[in-house]
């Protein structure tokens, strides 16, 4: 964008300042692809990506497949468009049963990021084009309004289990982002892809390079363990202004003796794996060294959950 002021890299410290209201993506290439908003402690808002809402609702994307990483602060459930305009806040997402272009226009005028149509409704008119022209995401879910609200709410709560997300006047941990990845066991070709992406995501929000390195290494070791010893795994990356959490939950044979596995040099890698250069036995000890907190839960025959925490 010509003439726009060039900004420095976002840093989390600047974001934490109480007076910092928002950073917007002006399509400047040097900028990040996130829109981060910091609110005062009286605010009840918590931030989630539209992608998370899509997943929670098992919704289909009518428009905006490329904008699912947009962040929303508020979920507004209503079918009355005058209310949306009167009370809706910018950067919200609309949940509605009113499947018409007017609903999309109202959402746009209220500066919402998108609209979710419930009960399987889909607008038949020019909504898609309008949404595309105005950078709105349109989703459709089979759920009714109650279940839709509930799914989003539970997904949010899973993200921060210790904090109340809907109390007035109580400070809540602002989630900056949340991502989910999957790892396929025994897939040595793609081994390392997840940790590479985690690294690039963290780089984008301008965190300390040393911290990023520790997270990347830990995630990599965890990823390799999955590839070597499990069938598949789900990886969750959560970032708040104070904490990075990476959880790797796998389906696999599990770890019979965690203490033993934590010993440097101990490995259960096969000859084949070692020939590839893996399985030096440094995996878990390495994670422990690089993370601030590490929790391992494992059940033989079922799988392992690795929870790594890094303080910012």
């Amino acid at each position: 964008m010509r003439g726009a002021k060039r900004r420095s890299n976002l840093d989390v410290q600047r974001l934490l300042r109480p007076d910092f209201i928002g950073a917007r993506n002006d399509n400047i290439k040097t900028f990040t692809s996130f829109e981060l908003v910091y609110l005062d402690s009286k605010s009840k808002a918590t931030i989630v990506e539209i992608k998370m809402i899509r997943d929670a609702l098992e919704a289909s994307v009518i428009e905006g497949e490329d904008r699912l990483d947009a962040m929303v602060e508020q979920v507004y459930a209503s079918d009355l468009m005058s209310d949306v305009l009167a009370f809706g806040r910018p950067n919200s997402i609309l949940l509605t049963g009113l499947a018409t272009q007017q609903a999309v226009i109202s959402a746009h005028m209220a500066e919402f990021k998108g609209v979710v149509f419930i009960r399987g409704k889909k607008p038949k008119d020019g909504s898609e084009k309008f949404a595309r022209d105005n950078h709105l995401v349109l989703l459709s879910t089979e759920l009714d309004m109650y279940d839709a609200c509930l799914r989003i709410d539970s997904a949010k709560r899973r993200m921060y289990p210790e904090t109340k997300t809907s109390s007035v006047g109580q400070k809540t941990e602002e989630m900056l982002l949340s991502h989910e990845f999957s790892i396929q066991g025994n897939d040595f070709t793609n081994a390392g892809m997840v940790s590479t992406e985690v690294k690039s995501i963290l780089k984008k929000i301008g965190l300390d390079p040393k911290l990023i390195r520790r997270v990347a290494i830990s995630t990599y070791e965890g990823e390799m363990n999955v590839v070597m010893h499990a069938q598949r795994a789900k990886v969750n990356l959560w970032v708040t202004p104070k904490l990075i959490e990476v959880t790797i939950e796998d389906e696999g044979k599990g770890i019979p003796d965690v203490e033993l596995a934590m010993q440097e040099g101990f490995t259960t890698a096969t000859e084949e794996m070692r020939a590839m250069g893996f399985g030096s036995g440094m995996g878990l000890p390495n994670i422990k060294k690089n993370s601030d907190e590490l929790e391992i839960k494992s059940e033989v025959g079922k799988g392992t959950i690795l929870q790594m925490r890094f303080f910012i």
Partner: protein
Amino acid sequence: MTTQDLIEKIGLKPLSKFEHRKVNGVFVSDMLSDVMASAKSGNLWLTVQTHKSIVPAANLVDVSAILITGGKEVPQETVDLASKYSIAILSTELPTFELVGKLYGLGLGSK
């Protein structure tokens, strides 16, 4: 869970004159056509609609109460009509989305 329990546990404001009754599930919509098509007898109906036609809609489907969310003001006409039919109109400052979380926390499902 009765309308009485809900009023006390969440802090809802009763606006009309009515008889307390058991609440079976929650229904959320501002569209009367949705209510007619899908709401169930005994449901707690969450809406921001305050036009007096919510009363016959509520009657038709036999909801246990209408809960107006987001602190929306309810016209006296609507309240009076509801009192006439002994339909509960309750009010809350909380927006719909937050209320759903609370109701679920109390054990109310959508059915």
